[in-house]
């Protein structure tokens, strides 16, 4: 993936002017909303000042125990504001969602533990296991979704991200 991608870690991840990802990431333009997903992993590198720092770099391979970060960026390239924007991302079975890792911006974050049929916020999500209902754990999550609470204005951009660990 694009090695030029940078991730801004300061505060609110939503409405940050993220660079548009080009290169190998195909950008689909449909219905006036451009959306892109990338996957990266954390790597500890030594910078020009000799200090070690953790950077996110584009990932093509992964080993068990490694943490990866998925980022979905979106931009309203249409002529009207987009309403009721919901970004939904499945969590592969071999990945385990990292608790608290979903960026929230001012979006409502919900999870599904039943393959995307029903969603709820983390503290209220339950699962029926052997006929018994129990609270869902992060390892049970099959989907994460972000629900925008406001309109996405013409020309506005945003992003949503979450981290997962390969089992």
């Amino acid at each position, binding site marked *: 993936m694009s090695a030029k991608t940078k991730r801004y870690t300061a505060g609110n991840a939503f409405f940050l002017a993220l660079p548009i990802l080009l290169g190998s990431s*195909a950008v*689909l333009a449909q219905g006036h909303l451009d959306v892109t*997903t990338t996957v990266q992993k954390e790597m500890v590198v030594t910078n020009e000042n000799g200090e070690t720092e953790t950077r996110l770099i584009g990932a*093509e391979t992964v080993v068990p125990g490694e943490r990866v970060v998925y980022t979905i960026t979106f931009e309203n390239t249409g002529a009207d504001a987009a309403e009721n924007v919901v*970004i*939904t991302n499945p969590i592969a079975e*071999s990945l385990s969602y990292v608790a608290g890792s979903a960026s929230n911006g001012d979006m409502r974050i919900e999870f599904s533990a039943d393959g995307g049929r029903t969603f709820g916020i983390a503290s209220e999500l339950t699962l029926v296991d052997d006929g018994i209902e129990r609270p869902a754990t992060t390892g049970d999550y099959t989907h994460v979704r972000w629900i925008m609470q406001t309109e996405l204005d013409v020309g506005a951009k945003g992003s949503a991200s979450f981290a997962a660990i*390969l089992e």
Partner: protein
Amino acid sequence: MMAGSRLVAAGRRLRVIALHGALLTYSAVAGAAGTPVGTVIENTASVTFDFAGTPTTVQTNTTTLTVVERIDVVVTLQSPQIIVAGEESDRALLFNVTNTGNGSEELTLAIQNAIAGDDFDPVEAVPAIYFDSDGSGDFTAADQPYEPGVNNPVLAADESVDVFLVNDIPAGVDDGDLGQSQLTATSTTGTGAPGTEFPGQGDGGVDAVAGPSGGEASDIGEYLVSEIQIDVVKAQTIADPFGGDQPVPGATITYTITIQITNSGAATASALEDPIPSFTTYVPDSLTLNAAPLTDAAGDDSGEYDTTVEPKIIVRLGDLTSADGIQTVEFDVTID
């Protein structure tokens, strides 16, 4: 008259119960295999929104992650501390070696006995590394020796093998001395700091990456020198029919045998056997253990009067350690 009492003990006790516990713990760990090498993880997000009341859904591009091989190995001592005496040979320590990576891995095994901090170095038997080929958990004649480069263990992801280190105990060790012996398992792909990459050396030619173990792991087992000491003392008191203490016909002899374990270790399945002296007759129902009466019959309690071969008393004391304190056996005979 002081015919030799005999204390039979089945040798030092190995804490087999603890060993079984360790094995159960291990089996609970099994099944934690990582995602297999070569797994492809695709991710596509979808975004729904309304434009002027018209619902629309768009899909993002699809990202692809390929799972490559993580090299990891764990060595875990299974044996409790082994109680030994000087100059014993072929004392075995059991280890479990597990491939905790997500691909197949060939390992080499090595023994190291020069370890700082112990009191003596166990002496490697020749050979010193064996597989627990019969799966018994005990070092037996069926177990096959490890030959480096010839029968290196090749373990699938999450597979494990049990390995013995076999050592002799040198002469000149003292009670309480500790000797350590270390087993190291090393990936033949390579070792390095976690994250070290071995391009193209994983299963099926994918990259391999050193995991938290760095591709090498070891664990240390211990031998503790403890010379168990068993003191058996027999005393007698004579009461003659005339109120005196002369060994005349009709006099009663009361034998008192005390058994004391000192030092660490245990005498397992110990039993005291004491023949009834010639020209004397056992006094029925006179046998006691720690002042508690024992019947003469076999099978109902820990003591019996046995006439199968020659008349003798038998008291089964079971497993004895120093914590049991002094055991006292008494019985009477009369002089014929």
